[in-house]
């Protein structure tokens, strides 16, 4: 195995691994500061923050010969015998000078900058900068340039790392951003008439190491140090990008990509990134409601039912109605889906179980950098299909369920939704009009909920816990990030209680149970790593 020597410490790297000195040093616990390098972008080695001393150790004699000059760690491959020195005086002085140079023109307006608290310029200055300003005192300037619908540029804060420019050239392939002028007059700009407007645009804000690029959706909404973050999965499409939900006191402020080499690498799309606002929409359904006498007359008002009463009364109503059909939404987790099927079969052992409506728009869209936005706008079709298959190997679809109800094979139906946007039209909903009991569990009112005899609220993506299986069969387990609004029980809690299980809803216990009872989900038995597990690999093994 190739051995790299970092500050005197020997570490082994994989024989086929192609690491640069930043990555190799990180393995040895040494963090080399860097601005322009990003693992998802081409190497330009221009910021010069990562300069280190390097050398080679002769394999035969063990003699170390050092390069006379500093080299960029980002551009220098770590090979067998590579010696990296990250903390010599030469290196420290060089870092201090780069920090000093970057601050010559910088407005240093951290108190009013959104990036403060998570800014590399700030952090590196404290770690590597010098305490004294030697350059002339600069008059404060703050020019803001609108570069597109989602992003704004604070021109004077830019340190010219060109990450944003490379992103639009290499990953989104849209090339809107560019560098204008030369030398210290250089600025980031867009081409006239071609704003930064692409489906991945928000990523440039994450990439920006400083507060130059601001996300209009987040700008001035929250200081970053007030927020907590929870590892979540985006519910926007079947790609299932790994994200962090950043929130404070049950309010979400932004979503950020969470690095996952198996799924989204470092990126998420704008639809996902800004797709959390429905969570705080005032029109969301809250509280459980039941139409008096289960009347199918829509003018009969819904009566509020306490959650504690929902559990027994729902079961009684559905049992009394007769033949049951249930749609298990692909927005639900594997755990919720499995419990819902179990609840349904405990009410009606012959209950017709189907995968709920699978929303789609357009076609899958792959960008030059390889990132794909999926046409299937739900996170867990594969997971729900896997669960339904355990109960009915034919895995009925939503349209089969509609047909089943329309042709009079059901007396009652329980339709789960949790869709963030409108999903059902009047005609489809009309098929459910004559049922003796119609339970609709959703985020928002719809033509279907208008017909419901039981109307139950649903949880949003960040409000549930459990497991989703993405389009590539990767199962990712996540925790609840924020609590749902008062009056909302997440689906899992209701099903847990309807199954008569004690204590707080425990998704892990359910997950283990699902894993034990099925080959499809066998991989879910143990601890799930943050980047998820591939269900197929474990099935083969």
């Amino acid at each position: 195995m190739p051995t790299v020597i970092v500050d005197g410490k020997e570490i082994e790297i994989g024989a086929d691994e192609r690491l640069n000195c930043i990555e190799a040093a990180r393995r040895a616990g040494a963090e080399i500061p860097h601005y322009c390098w990003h693992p998802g972008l081409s190497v330009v080695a221009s910021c010069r923050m990562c300069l280190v001393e390097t050398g080679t150790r002769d394999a035969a004699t063990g003699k170390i010969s050092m390069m006379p000059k500093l080299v960029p760690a980002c551009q220098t491959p770590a090979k067998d015998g590579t010696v990296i020195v990250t903390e010599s005086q030469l290196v420290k002085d060089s870092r201090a000078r780069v920090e000093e140079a970057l601050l010559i023109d910088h407005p240093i307006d951290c108190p009013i900058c959104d990036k403060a608290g998570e800014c590399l310029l700030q952090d590196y200055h404290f770690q590597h900068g010098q305490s004294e300003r030697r350059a002339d005192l600069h008059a404060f300037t703050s020019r803001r340039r609108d570069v597109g619908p989602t992003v704004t540029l604070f021109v004077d804060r830019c340190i010219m790392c060109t990450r944003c420019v490379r992103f639009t050239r290499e990953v989104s392939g849209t090339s809107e951003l560019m560098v204008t002028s030369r030398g210290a007059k250089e600025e980031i700009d867009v081409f006239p008439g071609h704003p930064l407007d692409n489906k991945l645009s928000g990523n440039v804000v994450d990439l920006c190491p400083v507060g130059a690029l601001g996300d209009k959706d987040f700008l001035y909404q929250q200081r970053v140090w007030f927020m907590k973050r929870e590892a979540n999965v985006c519910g926007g499409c079947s790609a299932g990008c790994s994200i962090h939900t950043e929130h404070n006191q049950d309010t979400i402020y932004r979503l950020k990509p969470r690095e996952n080499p198996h799924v989204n690498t470092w990126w998420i799309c704008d639809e996902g990134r800004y797709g959390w606002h429905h969570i705080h929409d005032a029109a969301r359904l809250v509280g459980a409601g039941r139409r008096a006498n289960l009347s199918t007359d829509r003018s009969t008002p819904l009566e509020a039912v306490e959650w504690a009463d929902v559990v027994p009364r729902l079961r009684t109503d559905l049992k009394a109605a007769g033949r049951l059909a249930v749609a298990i939404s692909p927005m639900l987790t594997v755990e919720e889906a499995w419990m819902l099927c179990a609840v349904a079969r405990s009410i009606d052992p012959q209950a017709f179980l189907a995968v709920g409506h699978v929303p789609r728009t357009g076609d899958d869209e792959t960008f030059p950098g390889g990132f794909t936005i999926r046409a299937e706008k739900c996170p867990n079709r594969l997971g729900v299909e896997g669960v339904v298959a355990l109960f009915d190997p034919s895995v009925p679809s939503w349209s089969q369920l509609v047909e089943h109800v329309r042709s009079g094979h059901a007396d009652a139906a329980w339709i789960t939704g949790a869709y963030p946007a409108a999903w059902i039209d009047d005609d489809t909903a009309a098929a459910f009009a004559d049922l003796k009991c119609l339970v609709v569990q959703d985020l928002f009112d719809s033509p279907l909920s208008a017909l419901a005899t039981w109307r139950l609220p649903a949880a949003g993506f960040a409000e549930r816990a459990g497991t989703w299986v993405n389009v590539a069969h990767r199962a990712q387990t996540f925790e609840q990030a924020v609590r749902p609004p008062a009056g909302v029980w997440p689906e899992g809690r209701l099903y847990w209680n309807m199954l008569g299980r004690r204590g707080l809803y425990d998704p892990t216990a359910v997950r283990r149970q699902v894993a034990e009872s099925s080959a499809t989900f066998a991989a879910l038995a143990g601890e799930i790593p943050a980047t998820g597990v591939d269900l197929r690999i474990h099935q083969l093994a």
Partner: protein
Amino acid sequence: MQPFKPVLLEAVGVPDGQTIASYRSRGGYEPLEQVLKQKQPVDVVEMVKASGLRGRGGAGFSTGLKWTFLPKDHPGPIYLCINADESEPGTFNNRILMEDDPHQVIEGIILSAYATRASTAYIYLRYEYPQSWQRLQTAIDEAYAAGYLGKNIKGSSFSLDIYLHRGAAAYICGEETGLIESLEGKRAWPRIKPPFPAIEGLFRKPTVVNNIETMACVAQIARRGVDWFRSIGVPADPNNPRDPGSYGPKLYCLSGHVERPGCYETPLGITARQLIDEFGGGVWKGRKAKAVIPGGISMGLMTEAELDTPLDFAGPGKVGCLGLGTAAVVVIDETVSIVDFLHNSCRFFAHESCGQCTPCREGTSWSLRMLERIKAGKGRLRDLDLLAEIGNTMGMMPGSTICGLADGAAWPIKNAIKKFRGEFEDYIKQTNPQGWMVTDPVPALQIVGSH
């Protein structure tokens, strides 16, 4: 020294010397026809290697050796780029070659393309040379018509097209990878190396970049032979195995405060003093020289006492200059303030820095600001230390930048401060009697645009 009869400049002053007829009457294109008939490409590489020719574009890298870095048996295409961006202040020898004897350059290009197995050559010409542009294009057209360019040149299996590309006026387009980026239609941001152009250059194909004067030398080596070339100039130092010597004639561009500025051809190794006195008629108006730029402003400064330094590839380095550079010798007479000189130099590099690397982008601009402030009578002694620090830490040599522009910006700063510190100190103390000793940061001046 015996008088040297110009070779590279032989067409200067010849009526219609730029035409193909004139060039052929002087023996031109004959060597090319012989080479195509009798020699393999590798023979031409060996010939140029044996001649000891070093690139005339500034870095002085052995031309034959550079060609051998190309991958063997490459399926092609291989590109030859001819650097005619000539933007180093004080330099104008490429221009004279292109305007007065373009066929000499073109024959050199054809020979070099043959040697490197390139079938496409680009001449990257700086925008400010309209006359060169016209003369070169006319000459290229003539060469096509005479069968020296195009398919199956003179019945051989060798084909070559030359394209003349006009830049948009930026110094950085002369840096070889900046040139390549610019040719590809991009912003001329020099590339990181490796890969070197010989492995992956223009359009990601193996590429050689050579200077115009280097091409003229190749033509003359083919015509007059390796021995002739090696009989001129300064032989390799036998005590220094790493010195490849400085062979051949060289075009020195003499300008500034001399009686007779101009482009003079002499063997490599003439001293600055000889050049100024024997060719330039001495420093003008009977004055003395205060300082001399040895090879373009990037190379730094020699003092009057250092003028006996031979201007070969090794000479200027021995007195703390960066190197021979483009051999553009600029004389600065005793009446000139060295503060003005450095201000002008800093302004040039701040304007021309491509802006990629933090140390160059900010270092060139910071040094200009300090010089602006010093000139405005608000200098501090501390500024000299800061300037010296910038000069010592900015560039490829300390490892802090991607290309050599930063070294070229650093050298005048560090030479000027080191060699003329007293003058700077006097200037600062006299113009800023109240504040020269301040060490705290002072308010920045409004910078006047350098355009």
